[in-house]
């Protein structure tokens, strides 16, 4: 029997097939954002774009953080708490001169990395389930936030803050540039590193990955550690937006849950091994744009959770088409 193959397809066609989830999220976002802008009284001005970007980049970064453990078939329920913890700590140490502020930023990133590493270490060496591990560590990280900042406040280095939340050349929102830099400096090299590849392998089939000699443990450790770093970048950006820190439990919880939603909308499989942080960014943008749309159409903000829920359901049901192809009914439950 000669097997039918698709060898004639060009590399580009494969690229589209492999990134269909991301592309769907991009199309969805562009459509929604165009609708938003065309109904906005001011249109697409730098100010409108910057306001939208400053809000959206926070969730985009947290969603990127969530993507990494999810790719290894894990979950990180502590991303929102690391985000808030970074915000609280930054509001205390990113102060003074620009130089002192930069040192503070580095310290916050290191603390985020440590928080993520602790998650990874417990998952890898403690062999606990990621979901319960990060639920517990998340509570710890939130507790630390409360110690650091019992009440809202702080006096953040405003030069850095203004630079990173303003506009570049009076047009491009600086927050988007930050996001782009994170993608170029963290995500792309990670995606193309051996350990990044290993993360996908582990999520795809951990046993086969082990049998193939893939560094399973290192891959998981790095995924959780980088998740901590990305969540703390988001925490820093929140600090620069508000010039202060606040140990807010609702913010921590909402960001954690919305990060999972963004990951799914962006085409990443919660079963691991498939997806991309780029998709999660656009998943986050989609979620944020829902809020803006409700605003320009003068709908009460009370509707927002309902609409977010509907969009999430639509996105998830795209993935349910696989049921039509199943040959062995048992596969539906595995």
């Amino acid at each position, binding site marked *: 029997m000669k097997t039918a193959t698709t060898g004639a397809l060009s590399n580009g066609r494969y690229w589209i097939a492999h990134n269909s989830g991301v592309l769907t999220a991009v199309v969805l976002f562009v459509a929604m954002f165009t609708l938003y802008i065309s109904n906005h009284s001011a249109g697409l001005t730098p100010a409108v774009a910057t306001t939208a970007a400053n809000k959206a980049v926070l969730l985009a970064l947290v969603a990127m953080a969530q993507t990494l453990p999810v790719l290894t078939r894990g979950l990180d329920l502590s991303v929102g708490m690391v985000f808030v913890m970074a915000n609280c700590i930054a509001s205390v140490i990113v102060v003074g001169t620009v130089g002192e502020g930069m040192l503070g930023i580095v310290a916050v990133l290191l603390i985020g990395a440590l928080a993520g590493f602790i998650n990874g270490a417990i998952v890898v060496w403690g062999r606990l389930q990621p979901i319960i591990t990060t639920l517990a560590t998340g509570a710890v990280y939130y507790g630390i936030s409360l110690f650091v900042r019992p009440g809202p406040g702080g006096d953040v280095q405003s030069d850095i803050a203004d630079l990173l939340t303003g506009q570049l050349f009076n047009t491009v929102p600086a927050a988007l540039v930050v996001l782009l830099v994170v993608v170029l400096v963290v995500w792309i090299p990670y995606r193309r590193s051996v350990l990044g590849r290993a993360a996908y392998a582990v999520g795809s089939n951990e046993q*086969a990955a082990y049998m193939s000699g893939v560094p399973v443990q290192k891959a998981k450790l790095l995924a959780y550690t980088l998740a901590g770093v990305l969540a703390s970048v988001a925490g820093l950006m929140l600090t620069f937006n508000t010039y202060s820190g606040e140990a807010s439990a609702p913010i921590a919880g909402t960001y954690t849950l919305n990060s999972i939603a963004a990951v799914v909308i962006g085409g990443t499989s919660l079963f691991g091994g498939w997806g991309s942080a780029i998709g999660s960014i656009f998943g986050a943008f989609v979620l944020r744009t829902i809020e803006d749309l409700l605003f320009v159409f003068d709908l009460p903000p009370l509707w927002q959770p309902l609409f977010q829920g509907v969009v999430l359901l639509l996105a998830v049901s795209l993935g349910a088409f696989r049921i039509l192809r199943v040959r062995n009914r048992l596969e539906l439950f595995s």
Partner: protein
Amino acid sequence: MFSLGVFSLAWMSALLDRKPYLELKQISKRYGGVAALTGVDFSVYPGEIQAVLGENGAGKSTLIKIASGVTDPTEGEVLIEGRPVRFRNPTEAMRAGVVCVFQELSLLPEMTVADNLSIVDPPKWLGMINAQGQRERARALLKRVGCEDVHPLELVRDLPLSRRQMVEIAKALGRNPRILILDEATSALTADDVERVYGIIRDLKKSGVGILYVSHRMREIEALADTATVFRNGRKIETFTKGERSVDAIIEMMIGREVTHQYPPKPEPSADRPVALAAANLAWGREIQDVSFNLKKGEIVGLGGLDGQGQRELLLALFGVLKGVTGTVAIDGKPIKLDGPRKAMHAPLPMALIPEDRKTEGLMLPMSVRDNMTLAALPRLAGRFGVDAEKENAAVQVMVDRLRVKTPDLLAPVSALSGGNQQKVVLAKWLMTAPGIILLNDPTRGIDVGTKQEIYRLMRELANQGAAILFYSTDYAELIGCCDRVLVVYDGKIRRELAGEALNERNLLQSALNIDASERAA
């Protein structure tokens, strides 16, 4: 003449001098109380093709796992070029040159072929994976195994099984093995591909690679192997060179064991039993090909053959688990559509399937013995106001007594029971539904001898009460002892039916290996 003599002398002395690349010394492996390997000495030389033969459970897989660093031996040592080594994981074995093509594929389905081929040591540029270089490497390796039709960017999950197996072989070649282990590596290949794999193996041999070849196909072994080693019950029986032993003698070596079980007496065969289940022309992919047979009331029919020839799929198909099965099934003379377990349970003769893996498909481990037993039969025990607790307890107690389930309490979690007793709970669950057709998927695997015998007795008792039983087992002795007839399956087809005197170990093994009588005579 002279020069030829010198040549062969040099060749002889090279043979005598040569040292094994891989050597196992007095290797034993025990899993719990069960010995999988006992005191095995084994070696593989550079440039030889060695076949490993043995029945299901003879210890071949364990041997391979130890050689390739998947598992540690309980006793004994592994040597590479005479130096003792201890592989902690497959990576270390690969670094030492021992590369295995596993039977259960080690490819990552959600990744591209190129990614899979360079999963450990991808070509890099500035510390990052060089996608271009990786694609080229993939193209070269795919060309080497004759799979130019596979695009490097295709996802492995989209490839047909035969191509996946070739990719798996390409992946192993990419690691520059000194010892290549092929574990049933040709089972899913097309005839063209098998020839190509033979070619690759012979080339590797010429370049000094030692090949360890596990296969159930005698013909392949005759075509390829220089030497062969037979295993039985975890012991090495003999290593011999090609041509030293006849196929008959080899089969003798593979069987040669005493019968240890007591089986309940079989009734006289009778022709006038009504047919309980009639299957005609069943087909499902490669796994089931044009299968037709009858199952009569009061009869135990065995499914024989090597592991993984489609027996499990056949049972799943009859129980309605597989989608897209073609052919017809009639139960008690009435045609029925295979549409899921619930439909099968409510067929004219209720069906029951005892699954192969009781832990994942049979039991709810944290739930109690009682809840597990009544799960499938709850509607029968329900009154107007839900499940009647008294009726339920009474029914469960009857089963516990009948099957002699050893449990501290009806409400104890099933996870607290021993393997044999867990299996009894699974059986009890399905007996509660009063099935007329019972499908058994290797029900005695991994349980103790005492419980096995109780299960054999129970099967015969049920058959005598009129149930029709289809019984898949990987243990030939069990098939012979329990069954009225055995259908031997090879490559998705029923190759032979054995009954009465013809139902013996020699015939079973020969049909399982798909060697027919004419071929042996030749």
